[in-house]
Structure formats: C-alpha cells, structure tokens
C-alpha cells in the first residue's frame, strides 16, 4: 500500500510547509523480466503493500517539506537508504560506516528537510558496488510550487522522469559469485527498468502545444550515458544535481553515474522522433547499447481559435520555429520599437523559419493576413 500523506503544518502567504512520510521496505527476492523474455534476480525497494520494483518507487516531495522515510528490511542482509544529492546530515546519510544500517527484519527511519528543488536519487550504500547493480535505487524529485523547475525558474505543464541504469546479468543471476567486484561489467541497459523493445510509446513522451514539458534525468548506471535530443525538441537544460545552472540549448547531453539534469522541451508541432540514449563503457569508451525514448507531439493543431488562425511554435523560440499562416504572403518581423528587422515569404499552412539570428527578446510578427503575433526569442 502506498502510504503518502501530507500534513499541513502551517500556512504562509507564499508557501506551505508540509510533512511527507514514505513507508518503504527492502527485499532481495525480485524477479526482473529481461527484453529477451528471460528473468534475472534483483534487489530493491517497494512501498509497503506493493510489489518491489526496479527501479524503486519514484518519490515526489513538495519543496520545503519535512520528510520521513521509514524503511523495513525484509531481506536476509543489511541495507540502507542513501539520499543522493540531498545533502542530509551524517546520521541520515545512509552510509553504514558513518551512519547506521538496517539489519534483517529491523526498521529504520531517515529524516530531512527538502529545501532544494530538483532531481535526486536514493540507493542502498551497503556494499554499494554490488547492491546497485542488483537494483537498489530510485529517483526523488523535490517539486517547486506552481509547476516550476525551481522557484523563479521555467514552468511546465507536465513532466517525465527517466532513470538510466544497467546491470551485469551474470552477477544478478548469481550475486554470491559476484566477487571480485571490479570485474562487474554491465551488459543489460535500461531506462526506468525497461530495455530495447520493452520501451514502447506508453513509456514515451507525449507533448502538447499548450505548454512546455519537463524532463528529469538521472543515472544509476555503471556506464556513461549520452542523450541525443533531436534539434526540433528544443531541449534546454536548466538544472543539474538539484541546482540551477545557466540555461543552455542541448542536443547531446552526457550523464555520468550519479548525475542528474532537469530540462524543458518544446518540440515542434507534430514532432515524432525518439530521443536516443547511448551507454558507453567507463573504461574503454566503447558504445555498449542504445535505447530509445519515443516522443510524440500531440498538439498538432496550432491552427486554433486561440491563435487567430496563425501561430508560431514553440514560443518562446530557441532558434528554429514552426509558423502556421492562414494565408500565403509576406511576414514581417519588427522590433518592439517598430523597426522592421526581416521579411519572410510564407506559404499557406506550415512554414519553418530560422530565428537563431535574433537575439533574446520580444518581437512582433505581422502575418500575411494583417494580424500580429508576439514572439519571444530566448
């Protein structure tokens, strides 16, 4: 049973301080169905009353919450929860040598204040080299109010979370024979516990023209991950490791073991092309595998009443934009001062124009039918 309750402790004009509790258990008897239909063992966490999963349940926490994680160890070995990136104090850090471990058939509690929004991870820190390849990890997101990546940051209407990981099937089949640990070599590569053809459009991204989509990316892999975002996705990275970074457009993003990024995407209307996710050996640099995240933009109708038969997408623009015009003819772009900057010949319907030469700011687009659109160039 998923046990998540929020107790409002105090109201303030600008925020709500909440108390969030999760009741998890750890186990070592999971069975993961691989892409080829075979099964292997995994160790992991689950909400009490639910099936254990790989990856472990993703935990969602409102910013500024006081968080309690109760963990009951139902397995025959000790485990912990390390709150990766949350900068908790020593006793709650989940490292058995400096914090505490939870012995078989015992329970423990971790507590912290989630005072930084962003994307984080959690994992077992007992014999970490083995327990991670066995699957004991999940993602934590600390959510800023009003669907912002961080207070004052970019907004979004929906979000998707992708946790890359890998495992060495021979180790998971026989973990007692895993020593020596430095020879662990991943040969099965996952996104949210799925691989290859297991990743269908149901696990992919559907976007809409009504607003931006946030991607929260983290890696618990032994491999170096490289995401390839098609240019038409207009992907912009805004955060790494739970902290804002100078925003930058990104078509290729490396994610090393333990790293996290938060991005905003604004794909072209009707865009349908996967994000490719490559796994490289940390030792040799060899490409080991590629998975694909389907992306489908469902907001194909920019020709809507709210756009007065004309439209530009995405808006704000990061360079290439799609312009829908109800008439063929000239479109003129003006600076806010009224100075004419450029003229484009549009055909009726869809047009693709490159706005990358324009600096950041607000522009006016006079369409062939005489109407005016406001364009924001980021």
């Amino acid at each position, binding site marked *: 049973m998923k046990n998540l309750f929020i107790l409002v402790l105090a109201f303030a004009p600008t925020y709500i301080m909440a108390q969030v509790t999760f009741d998890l258990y750890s186990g070592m008897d999971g069975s993961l169905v691989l892409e080829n239909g075979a099964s292997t063992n995994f160790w992991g966490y689950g909400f009490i009353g639910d099936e254990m999963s790989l990856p472990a349940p993703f935990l969602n926490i409102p910013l500024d919450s006081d968080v309690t994680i109760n963990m009951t160890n139902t397995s025959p070995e000790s485990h912990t929860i*390390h709150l*990766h*990136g949350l*900068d*908790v*104090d*020593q*006793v709650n*850090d989940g*490292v058995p*040598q*400096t914090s505490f471990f939870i012995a078989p058939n015992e329970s423990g509690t971790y507590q912290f204040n989630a005072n930084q929004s962003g994307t984080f991870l959690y994992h077992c820190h007992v*014999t*970490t*080299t*083995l327990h*991670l*390849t066995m699957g004991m990890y999940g993602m934590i997101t600390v959510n800023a109010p009003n669907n912002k990546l961080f207070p004052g940051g970019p907004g979004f209407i929906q979000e998707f979370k992708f946790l890359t990981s890998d495992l060495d099937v021979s180790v998971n089949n026989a973990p007692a024979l895993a*020593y*020596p*640990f*430095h*020879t*662990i070599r991943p040969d099965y590569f996952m996104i949210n516990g799925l691989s290859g053809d297991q990743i269908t459009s149901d696990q992919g991204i559907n976007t809409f023209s009504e607003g931006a989509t946030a991607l929260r990316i983290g890696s618990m892999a*032994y491999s*170096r991950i490289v995401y390839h975002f098609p240019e038409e996705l207009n992907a912009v990275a805004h955060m*790494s*490791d*739970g*902290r804002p*970074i*100078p925003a*930058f457009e990104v078509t290729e993003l*490396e994610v*090393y*073991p*333990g*790293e*996290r990024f938060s991005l905003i995407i604004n794909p072209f209307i009707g865009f349908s092309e996967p994000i490719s996710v490559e796994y490289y050996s*940390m*030792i*040799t640099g060899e490409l080991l595998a590629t998975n694909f995240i389907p992306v489908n933009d469902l907001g194909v109708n920019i020709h809507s009443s709210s756009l007065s038969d004309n439209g530009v997408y995405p808006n704000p623009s990061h360079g290439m934009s799609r312009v829908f015009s109800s008439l063929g003819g000239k479109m003129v772009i003006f600076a806010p001062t009224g100075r004419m900057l450029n003229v484009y010949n549009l055909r009726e319907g869809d047009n693709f124009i490159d706005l990358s030469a324009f600096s950041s700011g607000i522009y006016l687009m006079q369409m062939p039918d005489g109407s005016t659109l406001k364009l924001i160039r980021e």
Partner: protein
Amino acid sequence: MTFRFLLLIGLSCIHCFANASNLTLYINKGSLTIGTSFISACAFNADENLNTKSEIIELDVNEVINITVINTDSLEHSFTIDGFIDSNNAIAPFQTEVFSVSFPNPGTFRYYSDKSYGANIGASGIFLIGFPNESHFFWNLFDLNKQLTHDFANLSETSYPADYLPELFFISGTHYPFTLEDPQTKVVINNGQSCIISVVNSGYMDHVLHFHGFHVEILSAQLAADRVGWSKDTIPLKKGEAMTFRLVANQVGIYPVHDHNLIAVTNAGFYPGGMLTQIQVLP
C-alpha cells in the same frame, strides 16, 4: 644542465612584481607496495626516494617558478603542462633540465611525463594556482592494473590494451583506507569555513566524484570549462581533467567522497576501497 625558459605567460601589471621561486623535482621510477599490492611506479618527488604521490606545487597567480627536474631514470621523460609546457621537451636519462612557468589565472593544472611509461605508471602531479586565503586539499586520481604497471615498466607494453582491467584506484598515490591518513587528501575543516579542493584525473579512465553532505562550486576546469560556476554533488572528471572546487562546510559530521563509478571503490575487487575519502567538519 641546460636552462629552458619555455613559456612565461601573463605578467600583468597587477602582478608585475610577483615573486619567483625555485623547486627541484626528481623523476623516480621503481617498484613498491601500496597496501598489499606490489606495483611499478614513476613519480615526481622531492628527493630521490620513490613515492607514488607526486609533488603538489602551489603558486600565486603570475608567480614565476623555476623548476629543476632531475631525471633519475634510465629512460627519457618530459615535464608537460597542457597549455603551458608542451610535450616537445625531453629530459634525457640521468640528466637535468630547468623549466620556468607562471600561470595568469587561478585554478588547477596537471603536470606529467608523457614520454616512455611516465604518466602510465603515475608520473603526474598537481599545480594549484591562487586561492591564498583558504585551506587547500588535493586529490590526484589514478587507476591501474598491477601487472600492467610492471609490463609498462619493463617495456613489454607501451600502450593500454583494449581489455584494460583496472583493479586499483588511487587518490594521491594510495587507496582507501590509507586515503584517510593523508592530511592533504582527507578534508578536515571547521564548520562555517570554506576550503579549496584541487583535483586532477591522471588515470586512463573517466572518473566521477560524488560528495555526500555537500554541493561544491566548480571554480576552474581545464576540459569542462563550461561548467565553471556550477554547484554540484556529482562531478565527472574526464581523463586529463584538472578542476578546482570550493566546499563551504555548513554541517558538522563525517561525509564520504567517492568515485560513483562503483568498480572504483574497491581494492582488487574488495569493497570498500579505492577512490574513497572523507570530509570531516568539526564543530
């Protein structure tokens, strides 16, 4: 002894009276035991005794240093600093060369020998420039295979094989738990203070450091310069990278720092080990 004034960069007016200093480094090569592991090694040391921890050189911005490098080895070596002293220089066997260098900006830089087996068996060290008002710590990352160090040393191998199997993972010439015995590796700091951590990746692999308990600010990076100013808890260091971090201690306790490529927190397969050290924040 010849004198080479290879590159003197950026004596700005602000530092036109910067100090000049002198240093002698010995390139030593031999075999020794780290923990229980017998390896071959080469290093830049302060005397003729081989030590796997190459010397750390701290300078002010624009300070000129004259470095006398004495090659005690029977093979040629170099004294290379990417962007400052290129690898065309050569220090012949049992010969001495003098190099002068200064750095116009604060940050961490790596020096190494890229001749013979030099850097492949550990001849690689750290320059830290600037940050005079904070305490300094140093992590020189290195991965190795024991047999391969011997093969490099006896010249039966001259490059890393495709099936390279790293089995020991060093911070500044040793591995956990011995990393906790080096006061330049284990970070000990008072709560409320900040410190500078100077890191180079002298190994063959990329490494990725994860800080428990803290984010650190990236102050300089030779390869990932676009990440300067970022605040992170998990930081990739590609092969050859040199980075400077600032850590602000804001909570008391003991917090690990380790490679999050988890094969690298082992010693020949045993966990815990390898690239693992600690930050201890005192009340």
